[in-house]
């Protein structure tokens, strides 16, 4: 896959193999629906976070994952050459990628990037998740650098 900034201030993802499309579809699949509850666990009971805030956040996070999934499915189905992320869609993509990374971290406990190496990860599922996490992080960095600039 080739990823790069566009003159219009966006980011262009060019999948070159089926595997590339699969990993883009995995962004939405890797995110889980427990994120808002994990945030709620940081609050005390008096805050009524579970009752008031969790449903709203769940809705917001689900929308991010679905929007990204729809863009990828539509582009793949339409045999489009590339996916363009413009300024307007950047927050949604960043959020969906972040959800995926938070869920992978919660499941596999990779820890800080600088303190771990994929060579030490023996479990194939965790190893695959590590590389997806790394890939998602790279797209996030590019979004911050080229698209989400004020």
């Amino acid at each position, binding site marked *: 896959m080739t990823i790069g900034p566009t003159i219009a201030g966006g980011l262009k993802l060019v999948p070159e193999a089926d595997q590339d499309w699969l990993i883009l579809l995995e962004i939405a699949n890797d995110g889980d629906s427990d994120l*808002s509850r994990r*945030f709620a666990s*940081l*609050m005390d009971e008096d*805050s009524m976070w579970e009752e008031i*805030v969790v449903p709203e956040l769940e809705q917001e996070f689900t929308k991010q994952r679905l929007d990204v999934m729809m863009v990828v499915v539509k582009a793949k189905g339409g045999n489009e050459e590339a996916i363009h992320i413009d300024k307007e869609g950047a927050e949604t993509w960043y959020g969906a990628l*972040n*959800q995926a990374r938070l869920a992978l*971290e919660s499941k596999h406990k990779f820890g800080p990037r600088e303190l771990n190496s994929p060579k030490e990860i023996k479990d194939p599922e965790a190893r695959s998740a590590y590389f997806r996490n790394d890939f998602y992080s790279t797209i996030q960095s590019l979004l*911050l650098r080229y698209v989400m600039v004020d």
Partner: protein
Amino acid sequence: MKAVEAPARKSETQTREKTDKPWQVVVLDDPVNLMEYVSRVLIKIFGFSKEKAEGLMRAVHQQGRAIVWSGGREKGEMYVNQLHSAQLHATLEKAE
């Protein structure tokens, strides 16, 4: 009859000081959120300067947590809600 001395009362100010201790919005470190993103969110939500946001972001990263705001509970909850919406780990604590 001997006059009974009224018990000493805490002044209103002392009482209010005790019950009105501010709440603190605390951002917690996590291994996922990119440092540049954390600064960006702090600027967007609290209107901090770039320098202040980066200083707080470094404190979160190095010390595992940083108090980013103090004040009333309701407003603090609003800020934590915004931080959670941005997918940062944050909580609200009563000041010591």
